[in-house]
């Protein structure tokens, strides 16, 4: 007991710091330090192969980036991807959650089935879907299907008009199950008394949905919209594996742009500046969503 009191008094005691040390160490070395370094490098001309020739160039990188058409294209593509993906993903995930929320025998099989794509890595999923999207009928699963029902083949990933949408469709398939699980947890938390009361009042399915289910899940919706938006803004794997940013830069996202400049072209300074801009875009977007949601209340 005496010991405990002395601990409380001595604010320089080492024990509490020791407890947070492992987490802090990992956080510092893999998140905080790289962020500081990225901000610093964004003001330098720094080619990865010539660390000896690093030179301070002020805001030159930022100037070049915001006048680079490709970066603007990347921003446009990223937003387009997010704006198409987020509503579809939320609606599909919510719909699936409503379906599997029924207490029918064997429903857990469906829950697992819808969730299972999430257990596969995005890289593997992307490679598999490259085969599904193969533009040649007889080779690609989807195009063989289209040919069988008498429709013209679709180039999917091979055309600038369809590539991004094809990636959206695959991404929804891959991750909707995950968000479905979160919706499901939310649905099962809604008090049954509310539904019973509504039944007595003679409310129909739609009325219950509008006045009980959706309002009860408000926080879940906010959480999922935020998560899917942030995930959509970070889209990289699909473009990297399936299209390498093409065709005609139609799947060039901000993160792919950063990757290409930084790792492929080795311009670390330039890529750092692009990722700093990206950070502020995501920050602004999440703040805006948060503000919008708060004002609704």
């Amino acid at each position, binding site marked *: 007991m005496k010991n405990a009191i002395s601990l409380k008094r001595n604010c320089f005691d080492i024990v509490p710091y*020791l407890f947070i040390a492992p987490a802090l160490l990992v956080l510092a070395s893999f998140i905080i330090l790289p962020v500081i370094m990225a901000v610093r490098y964004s003001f330098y001309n720094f080619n990865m192969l*010539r660390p000896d020739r690093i030179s301070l160039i002020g805001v030159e990188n930022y100037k070049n980036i915001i006048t680079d058409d490709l970066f603007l294209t990347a921003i446009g593509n990223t937003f387009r991807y997010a704006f198409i993906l987020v509503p579809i993903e939320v609606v599909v995930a919510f719909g699936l959650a409503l379906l599997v929320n029924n207490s029918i025998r064997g429903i857990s099989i469906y829950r697992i089935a819808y969730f299972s794509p999430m257990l596969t890595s995005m890289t593997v999923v992307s490679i598999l879907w490259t085969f599904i999207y*193969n533009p040649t009928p007889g080779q690609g699963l989807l195009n063989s299907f289209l040919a069988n029902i008498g429709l013209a083949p679709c180039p999917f990933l091979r055309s600038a008009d369809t590539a991004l949408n094809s990636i959206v469709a695959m991404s929804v398939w891959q991750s909707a199950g995950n968000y479905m699980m979160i919706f499901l947890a939310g649905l099962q938390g809604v008090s049954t008394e509310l539904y019973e009361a509504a039944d007595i009042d003679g409310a129909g399915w739609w009325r219950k949905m509008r006045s009980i289910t959706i309002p009860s899940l408000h926080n879940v919706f906010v959480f999922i919209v935020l998560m899917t938006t942030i995930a959509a803004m970070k889209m990289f794997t699909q473009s990297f594996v399936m299209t390498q940013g093409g065709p005609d830069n139609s799947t060039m996202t901000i993160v792919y742009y950063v990757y290409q400049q930084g790792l492929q072209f080795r311009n670390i300074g330039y890529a750092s500046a692009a990722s700093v801009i990206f950070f502020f875009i995501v920050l602004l977007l999440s703040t805006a969503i948060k503000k919008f949601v708060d004002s609704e209340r």
Partner: protein
Amino acid sequence: MRKKSALLLVLLLAGIAAIFASGSEESTESGVKNLTVWRPQNTAEIEGWWSEMLEGFNEKYAGTYHVEQVTFPKGGSQGYEDKINTAVIAGSLPDLILVDGPAVATYAEAGIIIPMDEMITEESKADLLDSTLKQGSYDGKLYTLPLWESSVAIYYNKDILAEAGITVPERLEDAWTWDEFYEVVKALTTSEHYGCTMHTNSGQITYYYSPMLVQNGTDLISADGSTTKGYLDTEETVEFLTWLKRLYDEKLVNIEPTPTEFFDGKSAMLFSTCYQIATLQSTYPDLNWGVTYYPVSNDHVAGTPTGSWTIGITNKASDPEAAFVFADYMTNTEANMTGCPASGYLPPRKSSSEALTQYQEEPYKKFMEQLAETGVPRPRTPVWTVLNPTFGSVVTDVIMGADPYEKLAEAVEKIDSDYQMNYAD
């Protein structure tokens, strides 16, 4: 309590120290010089050859040198390059690295690999084929030695061609022109099979097609490797792109070829490297096939792809002389004698081309002829890392319908501004 927490802290620090201390040690214990070589993983045959060669080297130089290899997955070649990039920043490059031919200039310009001119004998240097000597040199100095060489030609299905009544050129000077090639591919396309299988994997496009720009009187980049303006964005390049696009537009070539469509008879011809010979002989003994030359321009100017992996000594090599002994061991005539057949690629030296008699006969003969007579190495420019993927996506984008002038102008802007940012003085 205090004691316990102090003990915890000590343990924690010891653990961290243990993590960071597990780096390499450069031991010269009992006078043995340790060397490390980095390389990308390759086919089972090439892996086997490396293991054997290393064993042989360590045995031969037991007590003097000992070499260890570290292999990395290729990952579309970028995975291996990433390792080298990070090692440069961390200052942890090994003694030797494998360098893909066109990357020699980038590494040489950055001072990551060092010249070998003072270590190599005149005799050995003179023995290198022209194309490999050019590929390994930058700014007049020799930086890397080739493990083997490569070339691209047209494989054809003899049965399908006989049925269509098409004969192939048997002499280099009779090689099909672009137009003739187009007509042949068109004649060979039926509902059963494509006319030809060609590469649209953007990482390989520059290798496969850039000699066609040279044939047509232009190039990817100026000879000094500093600007693509006036080279890449010319009518000659557009002509090439239009020619290639037509093959896809008319569905004579599969836009997403399967790896085996030629072997399965789903395609009459295959535009590929000498590496396919080994596969054809071992896996498809029943297929009746032959090889003919890479097409020439309509004005009959020839030019064919060359280049492959080379070995270089890094600026971090503790003993460059020792590193050279190993580099030489892996690339001399004797090494070629086992390495080239194992890899399925071509001998990079005059002596080994003569000694390996199978390369003077069909089907390798045509590849060797091209290598000696018409080989065009890819441009030696430090901006290669930008040029290669950029040209690759220009080609794929144009095939899919993008405007060639627009795409080429964009590419020139991208490549030249990178050169200005990093290499212009």
